[in-house]
């Protein structure tokens, strides 16, 4: 699976794996959207890019689409562990004005992450 979903408290974590392009994005999208639809109670959706080995602008489309869906339900999203390059591509869209985006250098210990 290109996406591993973990739910902890009010947070859905989506760990993306491998390459994100126009070919691979639809499968990732439906896995994340299923998690959003099945978990009405969540507060934040975290898209974790630490396992992403390549991304083009399809990755931006994936994030923006998930932002729109979450936002329509009154939920927030956050993007974590972007590589330097992916962060640069992401910023071209201005998504950082709508949702926090973080580079991989800001990675924290997974176990202590987002306990609330």
């Amino acid at each position, binding site marked *: 699976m290109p996406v591993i979903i973990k739910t902890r408290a009010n947070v859905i974590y989506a760990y993306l794996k491998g390459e994100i*392009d*126009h070919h691979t994005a639809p499968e990732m999208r439906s896995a994340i959207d299923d998690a959003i639809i099945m978990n009405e109670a969540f507060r934040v959706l975290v898209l974790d890019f630490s396992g992403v080995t*390549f991304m*083009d*602008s399809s990755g931006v*489309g994936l994030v923006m689409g998930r932002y729109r869906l979450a936002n329509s339900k009154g939920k927030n999203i956050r993007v974590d562990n972007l590589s330097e*390059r992916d962060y640069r*591509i992401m910023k071209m*869209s*201005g998504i950082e004005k709508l949702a926090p985006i973080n580079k991989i250098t800001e990675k924290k210990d997974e176990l202590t992450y987002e306990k609330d």
Partner: protein
Amino acid sequence: MKKINELKMTFDSRSVNESFSRVAVVAFATQLDMTVEEMGDIKTVVSEAVTNCIVHAYRNTIGKIYITCTVFEEGVVRVKIRDKGCGIPDIEKAMEPLYTSLGGDRSGLGFSVMESFSDKLLVRSRVGVGTTVTIDKKIKGKLI
């Protein structure tokens, strides 16, 4: 500039070929001894251009995508991505950041990304004839 090597390839506009095409171009161009960063730049640019051929030029149909990759002695990689698809009626508009003629999850950043990760970008297009995108990337890794 002096050509030292050239690759030509033709493949179907199927999305499964996006990964293959960007990897093939970079594999050929690595004879210039580039950095991982520069390889990533070329991969990204090729991925954007090939996606445009699949999503826009040959929308709802399968056509051929033609790539020529030329390596120059001066340390420049030139990638030409050509299609015989529908063409772009308004190139200026198509190149505007965040503009997309399609909805859904298209970000409208394809040309912006190509511009940002290359040294030179040239787009030629005729409606009903096709589009050619030419990208030059200077390889600095070679000089170090």
